């Protein structure tokens, strides 16, 4: 499998400026053969521009893009070994499914018999067997997307580009398509590069994610690393939900560190953070990593916090808001200093034993390996 780790796309110092606006700012990254790569970022961050540069619809102002080792600078879109699934799907409305899927093969002069076989195979792959004669306006959005997918896959590209593939689908279908896309990628073994603003989508499908902010790569990591070890506040905040507190680094040794957060209290970590002593840092704490209990009760659970010295990793507050989401309940808790912290709690049983409600005084604690210290 080491052979599959060759970079199929190399992006080298690529910038794109539209007049005075810089859409992509000196990005360099490698996309490996066979991986499911996701470009994640808020709208207007330059991720779509980057994808369109790979496809050849935009030319980089600076830098180069290599696909399979070949410089793409002078290669027009119709000569590139990549295919794209557009956000609007761009299914040709005047052609039926067979003609849509066979279009690329037809204009490249493939024999009729081969077109028929490959179209059938591609339709089977996206589970559209039996839809051969349908016109696009007789199909749902999800089905049209499958046509667009088949139309690209039938070309056997080295890389398949997908521009916000799931944004137009409803929630249920989106969840299903996330699995199907990952499954499909596994089956065909083609490198997928997807653009999305939806973090769930990125986390569930990607083998690696590049978080893009203001035209730059904020972090490039596998989904779990992105969530558990965000590199900066932007990533911590953009991927998932998080509580961020400002503080000062008071202790930093190879096996432990401590941060003094005026808003939250003393925070102890069971690993070093390698930041300058006394530096301004931010502590990120995910809502689901905080245990909630009534002060004085629940001692057994509290044992989990005993990996920190006394008085560390504990906080008290008052419940100011609750939202019941079925699988979890979200609590908005006001800390002593007036700041709000968000805590989520899985509803493990149908009837909650603790039965928290508004204005309850609660205490919180968390494990010493839960907080993430961010330097930027």
């Amino acid at each position: 499998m080491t052979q599959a780790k060759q970079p199929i796309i190399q992006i080298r110092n690529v910038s794109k400026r539209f007049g005075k606006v810089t859409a992509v700012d000196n990005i360099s990254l490698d996309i490996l053969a066979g991986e499911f790569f996701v470009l994640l970022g808020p709208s207007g961050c330059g991720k779509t521009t980057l994808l369109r540069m790979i496809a050849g619809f935009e030319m980089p102002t600076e830098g180069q893009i290599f696909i399979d080792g070949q410089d793409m600078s002078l290669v027009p879109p119709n000569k590139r070994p990549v295919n794209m699934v557009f956000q609007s799907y761009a299914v040709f409305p005047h052609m039926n499914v067979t003609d849509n899927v066979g279009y690329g093969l037809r204009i490249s002069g493939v024999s009729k018999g081969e077109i028929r076989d490959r179209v059938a195979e591609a339709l089977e792959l996206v589970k559209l067997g039996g839809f051969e004669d349908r016109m696009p306006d007789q199909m749902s959005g999800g089905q049209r997307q499958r046509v667009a997918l088949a139309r690209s896959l039938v070309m056997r590209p080295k890389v398949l580009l997908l521009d916000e593939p799931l944004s137009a689908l409803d929630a249920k279908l989106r969840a299903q398509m996330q699995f199907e896309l990952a499954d499909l990628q596994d089956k065909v073994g083609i490198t997928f590069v997807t653009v999305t603003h939806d973090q769930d989508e990125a986390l569930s499908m990607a083998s690696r994610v590049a978080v893009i902010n203001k035209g730059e790569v904020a972090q490039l990591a596998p989904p779990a690393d992105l969530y558990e070890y965000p590199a900066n506040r932007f990533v911590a905040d953009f991927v998932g939900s998080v509580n961020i507190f400002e503080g000062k680094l008071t202790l930093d040794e190879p096996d432990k560190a401590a941060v003094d957060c005026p808003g939250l209290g003393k925070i102890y970590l069971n690993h070093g953070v390698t930041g300058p002593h006394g530096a301004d840092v931010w502590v990120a704490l995910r809502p689901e990593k905080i245990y909630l209990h009534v002060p004085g009760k629940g001692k057994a659970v509290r044992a989990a916090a005993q990996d920190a010295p006394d008085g560390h990793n504990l906080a008290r507050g008052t419940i100011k808001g609750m939202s019941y989401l079925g699988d979890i309940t979200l609590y908005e808790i006001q800390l002593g200093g007036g700041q709000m912290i968000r805590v989520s709690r899985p509803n493990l049983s149908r009837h909650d034993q603790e039965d928290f409600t508004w204005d309850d005084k609660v205490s919180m604690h968390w494990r010493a390996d839960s907080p993430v210290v961010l330097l930027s």
Partner: protein
Amino acid sequence: MMFNRTPIAPLEYTRKLWMRSWVGLTMLFLYAPLIILMVFSFNDSKRNVVWKGFTLKYYEKALHNDSLVEALVNSLTIATLATIVSLVIGALAAVALWRFRFPFKGLVEGTMSLPIIVPEICLGVAFLIFFAKVDWPTDLPWPLNLSAITIAHITFCFPFVAMVVRARLASFNKEEEEAAKDLGATEWQAFRDVLLPHIRPALVAGALLAFTLSLDDFVITFFTSGPDTITFPVKVYSMVRFSVTPEVNAASTILILLTVILTFIALKLQGVKGIAETH
């Protein structure tokens, strides 16, 4: 009680009396003159005033009137040529204006629609002076003797085609064209396979517009026609100057029928194509 009608809902305009009568009046206003013209083409009388009985003799007479038939053939020839050329120029102009950004684009767009705005009489005089100045030959054999009129007709027909095509292009999803190129299509293939099918209805509509505009144009044709070239509207005008005989009615009825049939065929072609694509 069981004969009670269901009450008229607020949006059921077709069931409201005032609405029906208003529609009826509008129809009458629009079509009464045409119907009278057609009915009196069968009138067995030299005058067009009193109904004397049914006859087809004026149709026979009209069809045996050589100069009338010649005028009709001229008109149809001019209209066909003008339509084809307008279609090509108009569609290309529309695509160019839609796709590209270039200096003085607004000016180009404005001047292009000028022939629509400028009064016909001015255009007519302009053409008269222009063709005289360049010494356009008037004694050419058929159909070259129609060239001056045809050129004039193209001038005021193609902006209409361009306008209709432009409006249609606004609804085109550019990603479709990009998808075609992404799948390996050249610029020309993408145009032929994706853009052209999208604007086809506009091309049919534009062609119909151009054809009818050219066919019934009087003013500009009157100024640009040479001494020996005559078109149908000009011929009818010269016949009417003596007296409005049922022969004129008959000729006009034939023309109306011809345009209706042509329009019908054009729309049908469009429809058949659409149906054929679904199967």
